[in-house]
């Protein structure tokens, strides 16, 4: 079911431009991908006076400070955030709302999404000579177009789309799911 929604995402690329059929603008997603990979390591944990060692005037020969710093470093290093559960309604709403893409660009993308869906339809109906590899290439290209339009000005949405990419492909590449979606 979630995957079925995923396909909607593709169409939703243009939803921002299309008539406001879907009024149900989902509320802001609960940080779909938002958690930036920059954990503020330096969060001063507390204003409470810190450990005695630092405060102790006795100048100990061994420097205690470097060790904790080194220990802290590895966890800070880019920890791949697991793909968050996708809220596609929210994504769709974000695509509608995003200012990173202009109206004409959204319509153009919608046209191209429609064209791609037509190709899939023809492929499944046996009317086309394209291969699944061709379709995958076309899909990847379209995704790249979308991402290149978004990535500079709406990174959060771009990340959300990246994380949904395979789910959407899974829907398109499966004739049954595709038919369900089309129906």
């Amino acid at each position: 079911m979630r995957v079925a929604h995923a396909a909607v995402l593709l169409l939703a690329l243009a939803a921002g431009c299309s008539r406001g059929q879907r009024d149900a603008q989902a509320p802001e997603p609960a940080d779909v991908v938002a958690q930036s990979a920059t954990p503020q390591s330096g969060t001063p944990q507390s204003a409470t006076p810190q450990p005695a060692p630092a405060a102790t005037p006795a100048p100990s020969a061994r420097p205690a400070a470097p060790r904790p710093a080194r220990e802290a470093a590895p966890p800070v290093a880019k920890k791949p955030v697991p793909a968050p559960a996708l809220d596609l309604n929210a994504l769709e709403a974000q695509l509608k709302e995003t200012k990173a893409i202009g109206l004409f660009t959204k319509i153009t993308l919608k046209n191209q999404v429609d064209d791609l869906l037509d190709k899939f339809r023809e492929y499944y109906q046996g009317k086309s000579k394209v291969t699944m590899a061709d379709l995958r290439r076309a899909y990847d290209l379209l995704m790249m177009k979308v991402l290149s339009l978004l990535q500079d000005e709406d990174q959060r949405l771009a990340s959300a789309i990246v994380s949904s990419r395979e789910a959407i492909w899974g829907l398109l590449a499966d004739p049954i799911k595709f038919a369900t979606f089309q129906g």
Partner: protein
Amino acid sequence: MNTVTVALARLLLVAAVFAMPSFAADDEEALKKDLTAVIALHGQPCGEVVAVKVLAQDDYAATCKDKNKYHVYLNAAGRVIVEKQK
């Protein structure tokens, strides 16, 4: 008191005069950027749209940095069409 009011009114007027073109300029820049993306999505050479003429609603004549000119419009079927002009 009166002088202050007059001065304030003048200030607001001047601010409005300067603010107005800035809004218009922002809109035009956004439109240029939009059309640049559209032309690129259609695989046409352009580089960057440097001038736009509004011909009608959803109908534009765009001039690119590389001197190419395009007619970009939304047709009745809801498709964005990019036609190269000579």
